[in-house]
């Protein structure tokens, strides 16, 4: 399998249900760096949908089948975001997003210890229109 070239994948953009309630939405992201990294080097992702913003502290991360808050991920030791695996980031939003096309932007923050601390973290930005079906 291959991933879409855009960091924001079409597949996996959807609302999230908890029982009968829609509690948020999630986005599948391709790793923007040239190597995969340990989860603790991920400093979060800021998400903007149709102008509404969520800071890096908000989205929850699912990597390799395990779910973390960003605070937990920064302290993690044995989970990775690989080049060939998507990260799923979940943004809490009561009622979720309307079915249809949304303008989504992500600013993904990653640490690279071999680059001076003054330049940390690296920020990888991607923006595109994607469609929620349900």
């Amino acid at each position, binding site marked *: 399998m291959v991933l879409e*070239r855009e960091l924001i994948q079409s597949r996996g953009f959807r609302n999230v249900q908890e029982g009968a309630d829609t509690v948020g939405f999630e986005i599948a992201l391709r790793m923007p760096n*040239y190597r995969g990294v340990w989860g603790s080097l991920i400093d979060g992702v800021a998400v903007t949908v149709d102008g509404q913003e969520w800071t890096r502290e908000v989205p929850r991360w699912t990597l390799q089948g395990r779910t973390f808050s960003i605070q937990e991920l920064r302290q993690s030791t044995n989970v990775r975001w690989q080049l060939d695996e998507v990260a799923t980031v979940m943004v809490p939003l009561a009622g979720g997003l309307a079915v249809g096309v949304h303008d989504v932007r992500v600013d993904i923050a990653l640490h690279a210890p071999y680059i*001076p601390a003054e330049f940390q973290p690296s920020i990888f930005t991607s923006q595109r229109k994607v469609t929620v079906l349900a």
Partner: protein
Amino acid sequence: MSNLKYGVSLYSYTGDINTVLTLEDAMAQIADIGATGIEILGEGHVPNYPEPSTAWIDQWYGLLEKYQLEPTNYGSWIDSSMWRDRDLTADEGTGMLARDLRLAHRLGFTSIRPKIGVVSMDLRPHPIWEEVIERNLDLAAELDLIICPEIHAPTPIKHPVVDEYIAFIERTGSKNFRLLIDTGIFQKAITTAKHDGLSEEAQEEGWRKPLAVPMSDLVDVLPYVSFIQAKFFDIDDDLVDGQIPWREILQTLKKNEWSGYLSSEYEGDRLPYRSIEQVRRQHALLHRLEAEIAGTL
């Protein structure tokens, strides 16, 4: 007598690999240009790193055989600031490098480049580096692997960091520690290639400023150099590279009878498929230059 061999690092295909190139496609590309060596980044190109499945390892060897490629250098990292509250300990770093040495060996590599976290704006490696490497020298010898830190812009050759590496080689007498030269240090002209993720200032500081290390500096350390990453950004329709002085580099290597791999590291704009064509151009250029130089030496 200099014997130059040609390879490609999968780093060249960043952005393309996993999207428009599978591992097999990348290997087929490398074989198609007559290159014989494949370099990888352990944390980039090994599915489920650091524990690839045996099925994947079988596939890896099957593809090496099919495309007649030999594993050259394996890029690893020792991320010395993995967490916000503390640095990596020497013990932890030693374990990390040992893990990568074993994996590199299992995949057939003969050289490993550990990239160590830095502690200053002039890119001094984290002080654990020396202990981490030294405690792994025996394992490296046992596995027949050369550990080679990368001399990478903006660090030139005449620099305390490189002096320390050479002092380490001389003090330990180890044959399993050498230098890896990234040809980005010879960059003569500015590049406009965009490096994803880095701020403008970081790029200004590290990548766009031509470091233009003189060939005489390369000559001085050449006996310690075990591997060359042929970093480049753009080769035009006439096979002219505006940044990296390939003729001088090849002349220096030939004249000083250096033998080993030149492994392509394309680092130009990440437009889909551009890496494939740029690597082809680089190899066309290097072959042409090598033939010309052979005629003049």
